[in-house]
């Protein structure tokens, strides 16, 4: 994705967010009882500013793109961002997505499965994801996790499920 596309996309997202926000405010926030500057005021301010800023961003991106020579821009972008689209780049991004999913699952099961179970699963999965082969690395990680557990619960009196 070229810089131009990134900027347009992000500008559009923020713009949309601002509009949605402005509409959502009267629906979700009740009127306050103390004076005019109530609970809706600040969110309204944020909404309007967001729309204004993202609008300006879209306009500026569009204009500066038109002004400078189009062809050289696209080539530079491809060279800069080419790495992302190569097969290695794609693998990297997929790895990030998987890592993100592992973390989400970890957090969601933290209380249900208990600290040890969820941590054990999450750390093993990530070690596998990172292609760790040496068994003593796995052991070191499990050992540190146990130490962490002891440290937090015995020393710091932080309760872990």
């Amino acid at each position: 994705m070229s810089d131009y596309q990134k900027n347009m996309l992000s500008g559009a997202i923020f713009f949309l967010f601002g509009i949605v926000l402005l509409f959502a405010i009267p629906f979700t926030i009740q009127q306050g009882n103390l004076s005019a500057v109530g609970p809706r005021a600040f969110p309204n301010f944020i909404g309007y500013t967001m729309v204004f800023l993202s609008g300006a961003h879209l306009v500026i991106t569009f204009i500066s793109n038109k002004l400078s020579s189009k062809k050289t821009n696209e080539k530079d972008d491809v060279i800069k961002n080419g790495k992302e689209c190569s097969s290695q780049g794609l693998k990297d991004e997929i790895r990030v997505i998987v890592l993100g999913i592992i973390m989400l699952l970890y957090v969601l099961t933290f209380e249900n499965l208990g600290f040890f179970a969820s941590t054990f699963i999450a750390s093993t999965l990530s070690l596998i994801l990172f292609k760790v082969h040496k068994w003593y690395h796995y052991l070191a990680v499990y050992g540190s996790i146990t130490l962490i557990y002891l440290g937090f619960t015995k020393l710091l009196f932080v309760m872990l499920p």
Partner: protein
Amino acid sequence: MKKLVSILLVLTMVIALAGCSSTKEKEPSTQTTEQAKETETVKSLDFPKNPITIICPWAAGGSSDSMVRAIAEIGKEYFGVAVNVVNKDGAGGTIATTEFKNTKADGYTICLEAVGVFTTQPFMREVQYSMDDFKPVIGLTTEPIIMVAGKQSGITSIDDMKALGRSISYGFSGTGSLPQLAQEKFFQDSGLEAEGVPFEGSAPTLTALLGSHIDIGAAHPGEILQYVESGDLIPIGVFSQERDSREAFKNIPTFKELGYDIDMSVWKFLIIPKDVPDEVSAYLTETMGKIIADEKFIEFANNSNLMITPYTPEEVIQKVADEAAVNKELLAK
């Protein structure tokens, strides 16, 4: 290699620290066996076997938190097991209370509550809990609410307020709190023009008072004692049935004497989920009663200017219901 050495060093320090904190626990353990014998008859209950947790619905370091930690520290001796404190603050205590509803009813988790959670918060917005979900263990402490004026405002009495001729600003800690309600009612009844300014806690409220950004505020004795003594804050009246009998406060008139029958104090108590077995809850009530009668707790209460009020579970339920009815009317206006 270096890594191993440094890890070992850190480990030894960690163990030394652990040693530090555990030596402190060794002292009470000799007392534990003695006191545990006292409650031996009830101990055939086989409770407690595991550590007990007390939940504090307010942030660490606050007045509620200090009280829970004092109870936890003393409780170690009486219960014979570790007593841990867990803070879950937010939304005036309602978040923790809502979660507490779903806690296992085995008696190992107790929750601190301030009366406002049941008598004011439910009328301000939808809450998912009520007193019916819980069983009180025991009442703990009570603090009356005293109205004070900043030195610079020139106000020393209600008459001064009437003579002021301009609108009066008053501050309180937390929207929907009892100090707010008490002051609101007063200003309504007196017909004086006033603006209420909420703050995040008692410290910001007092700061604003001392800096004369607001004219009037309402706070607890413990918080204002030194300022009343130094003259920076002038007490106007106390919102309770009778005057505070303690030395420093006995000259402050009640609002009832001044012509406004407003009686609101903040009191705190402990609760457990309603399905906790009766023997366990009776044991908890009895032991907590001993803990707050312990001289260490009395000393803590005196230092913080708290009055110890060990209401029985039935008294707690009654008081909560009564006060809720009064406040419901007030808040409906």
